[in-house]
């Protein structure tokens, strides 16, 4: 490469950077996606999940025993952290009606013989009706009722064993020889926001970048910028200044986003920040790069600026799921989980959660770290190829969006790209003036 062309490419790079910034800040749609979406989504989701845990779920206790033992049991249920005995209906039927009316989320039925069974050396049956239509609710109601029951059992057993002649001190050990303690680590209270928000934030960064870059790609194509900004040349290197220029811009934009996410959001909502700065930064570097290069690759496929949102918007939930951090990977077919690794979000979310929530080092997330660098390399190449293809296509006349208008006047159908320029003559002047509008559009971008 001779000196002048190297200089030319540097100038081209600077031109691309300037241009990209200018168009981003003139474009309300792109600004809304790149900056607004991160702000709005992160705040709204975080507010929704901020209570973190579900406390005092209302349940009904049907007490047919009406005895000190049954009342004591109901009191214990009410005292359980996640339960609240909201009603004491007189019949199971009544309780079920309350359930259907959504007044309670679970029912405990204590039969007539409850106390008699407990005081005699018999087994007392209780009926537990737990609502399994909401997963979290079911888990909590059921686990709490079982815990209360276990607790009562231990106390009753101790009394029974003592009566049977087991010495007092031993009776306690015998009633529960192996005590089970279960601790939730990294998220002691099982908080829902703490669980899901870090993953959502990492995903939002990817999705807003992909859609935003895609929108700008569509803009470039519609305005013919590929044609004007790429130096002629058949080598793949021809696309390099554009790829690097655009990447620089989006990298800087995502740094701003990260500053907000970690500088404000994370602290305001109190999510665990156990990662060391260098580990977090070192891991996010290939994440951002792979996302940006994937975005540039996709952007070269989008013919119109709206296509990126139309095609990418729905992928947010599927991508969150395929990463295996919400729906456990054990529920999905292995091939699907592995296929998901072609998206930066899969390795990105998994590695990030382990660093930031669990305090892992970069070495401990090595598979994810390596995956992200491989994706960075692959998508860099595809971005160069895609953008170069665009540049060559840009030399051909751009599809005229108004060609679509032909359809409405009974003229021949354009092809799927809308590539046919209408030949009709009945409204030629009107079309001419509208074409004029579309040609001056660059200046009219808000």
């Amino acid at each position, binding site marked *: 490469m001779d000196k002048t062309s190297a200089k030319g490419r540097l100038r081209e790079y600077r031109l691309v950077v300037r241009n990209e910034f200018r168009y981003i800040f003139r474009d309300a749609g792109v600004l*809304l996606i790149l900056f607004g979406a991160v702000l709005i989504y992160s705040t*709204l989701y975080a507010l929704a999940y901020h209570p973190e845990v579900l406390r005092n779920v209302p349940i009904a206790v049907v007490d047919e025993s009406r005895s000190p033992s049954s009342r004591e049991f109901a009191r214990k249920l009410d005292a359980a952290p996640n339960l609240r005995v909201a009603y004491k209906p007189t019949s199971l039927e009544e309780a079920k009606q309350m359930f259907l009316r959504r007044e309670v989320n679970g029912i405990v039925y204590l039969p007539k013989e409850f106390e008699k069974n407990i005081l005699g050396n018999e087994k007392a049956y209780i009926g537990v009706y737990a609502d399994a239509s909401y997963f979290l609710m079911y888990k909590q109601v*059921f686990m709490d009722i079982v815990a209360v029951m276990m607790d009562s059992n231990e106390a009753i057993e101790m009394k029974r064993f003592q009566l049977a*002649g087991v010495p007092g001190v031993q009776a306690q050990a015998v009633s529960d020889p192996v005590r089970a303690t279960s601790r939730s680590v990294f998220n002691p209270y099982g908080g829902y926001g703490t669980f899901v928000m870090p993953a959502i934030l990492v995903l939002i960064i990817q999705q807003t970048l992909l859609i935003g870059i895609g929108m700008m790609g569509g803009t470039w194509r519609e305005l013919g910028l590929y044609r004007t900004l790429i130096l002629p040349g058949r080598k793949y290197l021809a696309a390099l200044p554009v790829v690097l220029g655009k990447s620089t811009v989006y990298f800087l934009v995502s740094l701003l986003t990260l500053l907000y996410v970690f500088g404000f959001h994370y602290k305001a909502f109190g999510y665990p920040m156990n990662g060391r700065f260098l580990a977090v930064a070192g891991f996010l570097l290939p994440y951002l790069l792979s996302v940006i290069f994937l975005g540039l690759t996709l952007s070269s496929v989008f013919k119109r600026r709206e296509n990126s949102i139309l095609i990418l918007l729905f992928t947010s939930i599927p991508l969150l799921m395929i990463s295996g951090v919400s729906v456990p990977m054990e*529920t*999905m077919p292995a091939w699907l989980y592995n296929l998901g690794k072609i998206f930066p979000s899969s390795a990105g979310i998994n590695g990030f959660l382990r660093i930031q929530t669990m305090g892992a080092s970069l070495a401990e997330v090595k598979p994810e770290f390596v995956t992200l660098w491989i994706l960075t390399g692959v998508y860099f190449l595809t971005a160069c190829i895609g953008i170069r293809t665009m540049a060559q296509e840009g030399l051909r006349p751009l599809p005229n969006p108004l060609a679509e208008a032909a359809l409405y006047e009974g003229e021949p159908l354009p092809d799927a790209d809308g590539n046919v320029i209408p030949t009709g003559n009945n409204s030629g002047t009107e079309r001419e003036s509208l074409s004029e509008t579309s040609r001056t559009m660059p200046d009219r971008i808000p």
Partner: protein
Amino acid sequence: MTFVKAVLRVMRRELKLFAGFRTFSTLSVGLPLVALLYFVVLIDKGVPEDMPVAVVDRDNTELSRQLTRMIDATPAARVAYHLSDMQEGEKLMREGKIDAIVDIPRDLEKDVFGNKQANVVAYINGTNVTKNGILDRDIRTTLYTFSSGIEIQLLVKKGISEKEAYDMMMPIYYEKHILFNPYTNYAYYLLPIFLPMMLLIFTLLTTIFTIGTELRNATAPYWLAAGNGNIFAAFLGKVLPYTFIFTILSIFIDVLMFKIIGVPMRGHKGMLLASDLLFVMAYQSIGVFIITLVGNMRLGLSVGGGYSVLAFTFSGMTFPLIAMYPAVQAASRIFPLTYYMELFIDQAMRGAPAGQSVDDLLYIAVFILLPLPLLHRLKRLCSDAKYWGKL
């Protein structure tokens, strides 16, 4: 020209557009089908099984090995590592290789048979609340069973007969009646929310796109003209073909859920079908409302897209609504999905009386009225060239 004829003419024009440009069919048929089938494949097994856990066995006796085998035998867990200290376990957890560590104390055997209570601690990764819940349940149940087994042996040693011991133990026992999702299958929680979620995203985007594209391409006056200048006819002719497509998709979702996946259907079929139709119409109406209000496709898609994705969180299907702040609960009312899910759970899963769901149906229907006050503005958008051709 009568009103009906005008509507039919707009519909014919819409069908021509649908046949002429791939974007329309991709957006309303192709991508929705891909998304729906994706979720059906994703939640294939329904229940997570054999999640890797580590056991730190400091006791290393027949008893501790028995406990390890019992943990390995649970559906949720599989003992992937046998370790000698906790540090190793913590590292494996940070590396994402295990989801839990069970710490068996030294002298487990000696203590329990010496009438001293032993303590087994399970450290379960809380980073994933779902996995945590399932592992917690299975490991705790195993430990209770293990403890009860020892309890009987101890009582027998104290000269109490096995039968007597059994009668004394577990004085209170429960019979579990799981209401409305008897298999606690994961697919039954997730598909009923994921599938309508995909449907609503595409319904909303398609509606904004079909109207927005007329503005962007400056073809809106032809659209209005096809409706004989009557904006209501133009509006109906444009949305009705898609009402048809998305309602068919909605029924396809029902078929997937009830016939293929086997989600229970206990309630009133008519109510469910009515909610399917109204749900589609509600999101179409919101689409018309948004695009008419912002008057340009790009911003319309950004706003509509943002609004559509939010519905997931606010439906309360994952983190329940009753746990959210009152203001957030109030905000959840601006998403038809919230009512739709309420109706779905009441009718399909719980088999509530039909009357119970009438109010949900009415709330969804309210959204259908949204475009009406804006039709006047929509007509202006179609007639005034200053709204056209925006990128």
